[in-house]
């Protein structure tokens, strides 16, 4: 695995760089969207607030915290050792993977059920969105399984 060839510091620096770039891109996107959106249209304002809250709490605040922890680990050898232990924690990795596996299977069935409900109700936007997400889920699973992990 190429990951093993890099040193821990190199991996942490790479993660730090990715996180900083992502934070910058996201804040730029959100700022641009604020000027671009037409808030006078009905339903746009609540949807915008929901998106801001969800995105910030799910992605950006944990990412900012991650940046803080990465910088601390790169400065302090004690925290560097802690980061190494966390990276090697097999039980935590297993729990994460099992949770994703269960979620993926649950979501596949939920998407199929939603497609079956959306069609009789003639909600075609709902149907096509669910079908797109379903294909994305299974397609990425299949591609990752066949062309990435099976070759390791």
């Amino acid at each position: 695995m190429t990951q093993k060839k890099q040193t821990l510091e190199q991996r942490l620096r790479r993660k730090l760089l990715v996180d900083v770039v992502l934070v910058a891109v996201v804040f730029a996107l959100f700022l641009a969207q604020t000027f671009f959106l037409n808030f006078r249209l009905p339903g746009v304002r609540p949807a915008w607030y929901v998106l801001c809250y969800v995105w910030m709490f799910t992605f950006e605040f944990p990412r900012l915290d991650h940046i803080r922890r990465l910088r601390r680990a790169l400065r302090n050898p004690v925290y560097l050792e802690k980061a190494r232990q966390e990276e090697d924690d097999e039980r935590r990795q297993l729990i994460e993977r099992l949770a994703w596996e269960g979620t993926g299977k649950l979501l596949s069935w939920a998407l199929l059920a939603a497609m079956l409900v959306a069609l009789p109700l003639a909600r075609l936007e709902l149907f096509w969105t669910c079908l797109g997400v379903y294909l994305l889920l299974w397609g990425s699973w299949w591609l990752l399984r066949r062309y990435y992990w099976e070759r390791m």
Partner: protein
Amino acid sequence: MKQWHNSDPSDFSRRLRREKTAGVLLILLGILLSGVGFAVRLTHPEQDETFHFAWQLFAALAPALCLSYGVPLLLRAQRLLGRPFYQDQARIEQEDERALLIDQKAWAGAGRLLTGALALGMLAALALVQLAVFWTCFALFLLLRGSWWLLRRRYWEQM
């Protein structure tokens, strides 16, 4: 740690019989949904073309989804139940740790990709003022993250 696949051969036979029943039920459900889809066209001639187009799609896709799951499930169970040697092979395959690991890693990758895709989908849908798409993506996002969090915290962490 919980064992996902019980190694007892008689348990595996029972599991195969359950899979066979599930396969039959899915095929029957597909046929039933197809019948319902076509019956609506006959019983509601006054409705517009969009309504009938959606029902035709439903009548074609619902059975296709049910059959795509049901038929392979039934055929596999039927094939393995009659042949103890192949049944043993299939059981060993299901317990193959490498296969399980690859599956889990692919799910983890797909889950993370999908989370990002849904978040971007929400951003794009809002920019295009497609609110139905926005709320669908939001519901799927909540389902994805919520079930991940619940499974992680309430199920796997307590094993």
